[in-house]
């Protein structure tokens, strides 16, 4: 029935042998055309994802963080082929799925599933949840008896009762619906799960329940997660490696501890310092970024962060920084990838997030700042 359980430990073990990639994303680009006028001609492109590359190792959890409009959700959806990429390669299990036809994709999609953010809109209100969970199995021709068995097994796995399968979504709370969404993704026995903000719509006490379930399932089924979220504390909790996105580009990507202790991209530093810590006795120096994220319709030249960056020089406006490895310092030997001209100079003291970038004056006006809150 559920056969992948014993593969679990094997999947995890492969983590150290860094060659075993379940997914490789290379130069992924996704533009959404903006049409206007009576002829509906394409007048502009929303550059939602603009050249993103990363590898996902088998059995790991890779977190993608960033603020709204940074392209993290579009990246996840494009990898699932829920929208078609404009350019770039998505190599899943050795096969480039970016160019597969819908029919071919049907087979591949068995191995990759998605969990959505909103547990209210992602379940069909007119269908008993058991049918929603088993729908993928039905499509792939699993006989009814086996289907029912898998559905009740999955419901048990996410902490619900098998009898719940005949109930409708409105009979469940938000947290329970999110479990149903997880059960639905699991029923196909996928290898990769894209979790798009799976806990952001949930209350904190429910959020921790769902996060624990996700961790348990990963251990038992050897799952690989691409975990997309805006909440850095949640991402830190669940991820092995974390990628930070800004305006359609990857800004920084490395091991979880390395990122939170030794962030090198100024945007990552600002993001980390902006998070309120639930401890009233901690008073941190905070980097307050000027203005808002620029529009992805017309992103800034050079480094996209230069309009809000307190370190920006002329080169940042002129040249796009390379996506390069500066080497991690935590001895893991894993790469620390960052896209910043000055990544070598942004080192922060040990203790990291609490005292990010002491040397820089965060109140100094950013170059070409669009709008300054304290002007």
């Amino acid at each position, binding site marked *: 029935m559920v056969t992948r359980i014993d593969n679990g430990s094997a999947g995890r073990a492969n983590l150290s042998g860094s060659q075993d990639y379940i997914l490789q994303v290379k130069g992924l680009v996704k533009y959404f055309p903006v049409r206007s006028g009576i002829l509906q001609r394409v007048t502009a492109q929303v550059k939602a994802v603009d050249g993103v590359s990363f590898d996902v190792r088998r059995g790991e959890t890779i977190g993608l963080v960033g603020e709204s409009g940074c392209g993290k959700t579009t990246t996840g959806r494009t990898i699932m082929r829920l929208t078609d990429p404009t350019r770039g390669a998505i190599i899943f299990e050795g096969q480039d799925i970016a160019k597969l036809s819908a029919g071919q994709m049907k087979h591949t999609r068995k191995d990759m599933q998605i969990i959505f953010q909103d547990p209210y809109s992602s379940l069909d209100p007119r269908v008993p949840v058991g049918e929603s969970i088993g729908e993928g199995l039905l499509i792939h021709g699993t006989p009814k008896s086996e289907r029912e068995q898998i559905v009740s097994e999955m419901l048990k796995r996410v902490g619900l009762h098998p009898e719940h399968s005949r109930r409708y979504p409105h009979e469940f709370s938000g947290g329970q619906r999110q479990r149903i969404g997880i059960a639905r993704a699991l029923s196909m026995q996928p290898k990769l799960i894209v979790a798009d903000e799976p806990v952001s719509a949930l209350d904190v006490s429910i959020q921790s329940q769902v*996060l624990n379930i996700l961790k348990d399932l990963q251990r038992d089924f050897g799952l690989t997660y691409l975990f997309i979220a*805006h909440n850095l504390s949640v991402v*830190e909790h669940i991820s092995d490696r974390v990628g930070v996105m800004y305006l359609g580009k990857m800004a920084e990507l490395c091991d979880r501890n390395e990122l*939170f202790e030794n962030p090198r991209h100024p945007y990552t530093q600002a993001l980390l310092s902006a*998070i309120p810590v*639930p401890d009233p006795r901690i008073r941190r120096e905070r980097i307050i970024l000027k203005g808002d994220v620029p529009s992805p319709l017309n992103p800034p030249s050079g480094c996209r962060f230069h309009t809000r960056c307190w370190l920006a020089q002329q080169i940042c406006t002129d040249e796009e920084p390379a996506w390069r490895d500066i080497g991690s310092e935590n001895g893991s030997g894993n790469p620390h990838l960052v896209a910043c001209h000055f990544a070598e100079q942004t080192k922060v003291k040990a203790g990291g*997030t609490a005292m990010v970038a002491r040397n820089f004056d965060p109140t100094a006006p950013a170059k070409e700042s669009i709008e*300054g809150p304290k*002007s």
Partner: protein
Amino acid sequence: MKAQSSGRPGDELLRVEGLKTYFYTEDGIVKSVDGIDFSLKRGEVLGIAGESGCGKSVTSLSIMRLISKPGKIVEGKIWFDGQDLAQLSEEQMTKIRGNRIAMIFQQPTSCLNPVFKIGDQIVEVLKIHKKMSDRSARDRTIELLTMVGIPSAKKRFDNYPHEMSGGMCQRVMIAMGLANEPELLIADEPTTALDVTIQAQILELMKELKRSINTAIILITHDLGVMAEMAERMVIMYAGKIVEQADVNDLFDAPKHPYTQGLLASIPVLGQVKERLEVIPGTVPSLRNLPQGCRFAPRCPRRMPVCTSEDPDLLKLDGRAARCWLYHPAINPDPAVAEEQTVEQVNSYRQSHRHA
């Protein structure tokens, strides 16, 4: 600062007593706020935290008298500077609302009128309550927009809400809320809809304004990080009741109520990686069908026999309060002993102390 606020900082500004706000729906009575008491001093920041459905937003709407059918303030007093807001006529309340008490909401983009210029929307507030001339209201508006950090405020005056980002709209909402220098500002999840870097800007702005204007603030949020940073005193609500009330340091240092303890333990904290998060089992009860006894009892890890039959009072404990039998003098918190405690014992204790 202004003529109508006669009190000094530190004086009591607001006292809510036994407030009950129910919603009479077709499916039954929803007891959103079910008997809460708290007070607020001038210039103080009080945080109200809790999960969805705990009644924190209904509490603030009740203070603003913005509860509409099928909802109703059933009982209780809302003393604001010596006046009971619950008894005021709509006309009298209109004079206070937006003037002496202002509110900012979670969704700044939907709270501004999309067909009016943002400047005119603030001018309107000033003209209604302050009877200002067009000219001086306009000048004051530009001053306010500058104060909340909107660059080139003169130009921005003529913008429509859709021309501004969420963070900028929230600044406009704050400017509007502060236009009449209210004595009390109620901020209901003011940063929840914003990204973290924008949230940081708004929190910084609110702290700055707090220092310069000295308005009392009721801050409502589910984000305990924001709470720790902004609030001086905190109220934790659960299923329509206050379960704990304490100074912010005391609350985070040593939460008393098992719900508060569970809440604090269940959030992932940046820089403190744990293999597993603590969990509060189960879900929040339906407000139409509340459990007997303590409302948290079905989920409580320290549940005792008395908890499922009798609702505890909000017990005063050395400058703070918790609604939990664990702290009742008639109950021994030692679980082995507590097992023996019976409802009768507690009742007899209550009887003897009622007359004392």
